[in-house]
């Protein structure tokens, strides 16, 4: 015959799985937060400038990149002419004052930069800037 003791009647919840879950959630959110900002830089050598102006970071800006071979990028991803031109057209409709940054390799042919400038001028997008090499920023 089984004897029921008091101790046997106490129900006990194991904390281990709960803490496991909490930590897993913590790590998940930590990683998710870090990965939220998409890297929109492309692998290029930026031109140096003595007169560049340092601007505050702007996550909303549109970034059009051009590498040494004249290939275009939109927000860090390879883009066709149709794609980045459509993005500029959309921007002209929605937010003409939004900043546009051109990341061009120092060896990029100037005609590609002129091409972007031409479309911005035509669409009335005047908040256009060119990214240059920043010793402090690019070293990190």
């Amino acid at each position, binding site marked *: *015959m089984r*004897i029921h*003791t008091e*101790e*046997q009647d106490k129900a*006990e919840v*194991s*904390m*281990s799985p709960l*803490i*496991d879950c909490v*930590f897993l959630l913590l790590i998940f959110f930590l990683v998710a937060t870090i990965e939220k900002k998409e890297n929109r830089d492309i692998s290029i050598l930026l031109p140096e400038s003595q007169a560049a102006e340092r601007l505050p970071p702007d996550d909303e800006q549109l970034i059009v990149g051009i590498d040494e071979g004249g290939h275009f990028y939109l927000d860090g991803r390879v883009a*066709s*002419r*149709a794609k980045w*031109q459509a993005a500029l*057209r959309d921007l002209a409709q929605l937010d003409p004052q939004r900043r546009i940054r051109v990341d061009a390799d120092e060896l990029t042919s100037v*005609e*590609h930069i*002129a*091409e972007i400038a*031409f479309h911005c*001028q*035509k*669409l*009335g997008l005047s908040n256009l800037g060119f990214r240059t090499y920043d010793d402090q920023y690019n070293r990190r």
Partner: protein
Amino acid sequence: MTTNTTAVNSPANRYQPPRRRSNWGVLTLLAIALHIGGLGTLWQLGFFETALAIDKEEAKQMAEEAERRARERRERERKEREERSLREEDRDKLEDYEREQARQQLLAYVEELQRIDEEMLDLKDTSLDGLELREEDQYRLFLAQQVLRLSRGLQSDLTNFQDPDYRRFAQTTARRQLYAPLQTLVQVAERVVEDVNNTDRVNSLVQQADVNKDNTQRLFDQAPPSRREAETEANATGDEIQRLAYELAGKHALDPSEYRNTQEARRNQDPGLRPDNLPQLSPEDLLDLARQLEENINQNFDDLRAGQLAQQLNLPLSQVMEGLTPSGLPPREQPQFPGQTPETFADLQALQEALQQAADLAGQMAGRAGQQLSSAQGMVPGPPGLLPGMGLGLLPGMGGGMGSSPFGIGMSQPGGTPGRLDMRQNLDLTPPDPNAQGSGANEVDNEGNTTKGGENMITGTRLPDVDLANREDFIHANSLPGHRFSATSDRSGWVYLNTFYTIGPWENNGRIDWDNTHAPDPQPFMNIDLDAVYTDGKTKASPADRNTRTHPNRKHNAVIDLDGKLRWRFVQTDTIRMTFPEEYEDGTYYAYTEVYFEQDMDMDVLIASDDATTAWISNSHPAYNAAGNAFRFHTEDTKSSWELGESRKRLRFTKGLNRILVRLENGPHYARLSVLLSPVGAIDEQAP
């Protein structure tokens, strides 16, 4: 009973409380969390960054050290190689080979420079011919006005001279001997200004200027010594009046024909400048020749610039030429050619470098000369003024003369196709609708003509006849590039489109056949894919083609094989007339661009080309927006050279982006295009 009790209390059956595993689990997780936290803290404090930075620094030093050693080894090996002697039997062969390679490159550049020199000379002749004719009267008038102004000034100065001694002197002797002739001089100058071509009056002016000069000199010699300053000034004025009067009686200060003769004489005297001698010339001689050609081109280009400025500023050509900054560059570093056959590898390398430097130098000259030619072609307004049959870019036998008449219709010689008249006949100009003036919606006359492409060919409004030939200089001088239009803009003149995407050539076998469609043609809608690559392009280029002269695969008089791959290229030009970057004969080209209108606007559109063109303009009228079609702006079917005003229509552009696609059929020589837009009436209001 005992047994039962024993059974219950035996160790095997005794109650065992559950193990407290959770305590260990919590401790383990806490330890992990502490580690993670610790690592995170260290990371935040930059511990890892510092550690990695040290590693990077060490690695960088090691890499630099390795690179330095490799560089030293390469340098050592290079020195050893250079010091090695060449085999005697190879020396001449190697030198000949290197020189021949460089000579071929130089030859191509010199031929290009010669061609540019010829074209620049033709352009200058054309420009100066017109300038000479136009300026003769203007310049004479300018001189007469100057004489009149100076004479009046001298008269006024002498009259108002505030000096008691001089006034006494002037009121006695000088009054009769100086003032009276001076008054006569002023009167004669006034009569000359009224008619500068009256020889008698001009001769009289010269005589009077001589008298005035003598009087001034003589009378001031008698004047008190304290009047030396006034004497100097009056004498200088008298000299200037005399010089201008003589110039007025003589001929033009600059005689373009004399200059041309000098050029021709120099060319004939220099045997090296003749094309048939080029293959025999050494690289050194070819480089010298390139330098001479560059000087010629610079000189001719400067003359052209001066001519254009003289027209725009309404100044004498000679005066503008004196004040013009020469376009020649400061002396460049010249290659040092070794004086003897190379004996070592180092000598051979020095020869290679010198030859390469010479070729590069000639290439720079050719490139710069090409830019100058392009600019010059933008300055000189097409072939009007040439003799019949001499139009640039025309096929033999098709040289219809294009003289400018008040009706804008050219004359043709027997055997030649009428030039401008032919173009007008090929325009789709419908009679003006008297009820539709000024209204874009009513201006379009939909005839319903359907082309093979399926789009409706709808004609624009016929514009009133305006002789653009007299206004082209003005338009050239006052047009600005632009692609965005606003009714509120401060500037409302002509705007030329300077930015295009171009593609071509497709083979057209020398024929103009709009039915032979290619991918960019609207079929039926305009659908341009700027990322597309087409593989059905032209594959053969003739030796006469301009581009083959500098093509890397060029061989003497050989047909160049092109790969037939075509991509859209971004082109921006600083002149009204755009040159296609890939310029081959007998090819079909396309140029695509976009313009933005902030509101609906009626515009005069001028499209001109060398040779034939048809264009589509989408969004240019609401009627086509609904159908998705483009307005077809058909210009001409003849192979004629570029002329600014060869086709002109009035269109209504709608708010937003308007797309323009131009198809150009190129025959011989050049592929040129210009597209100008102007608000309605600007041409009539602004032209002088």
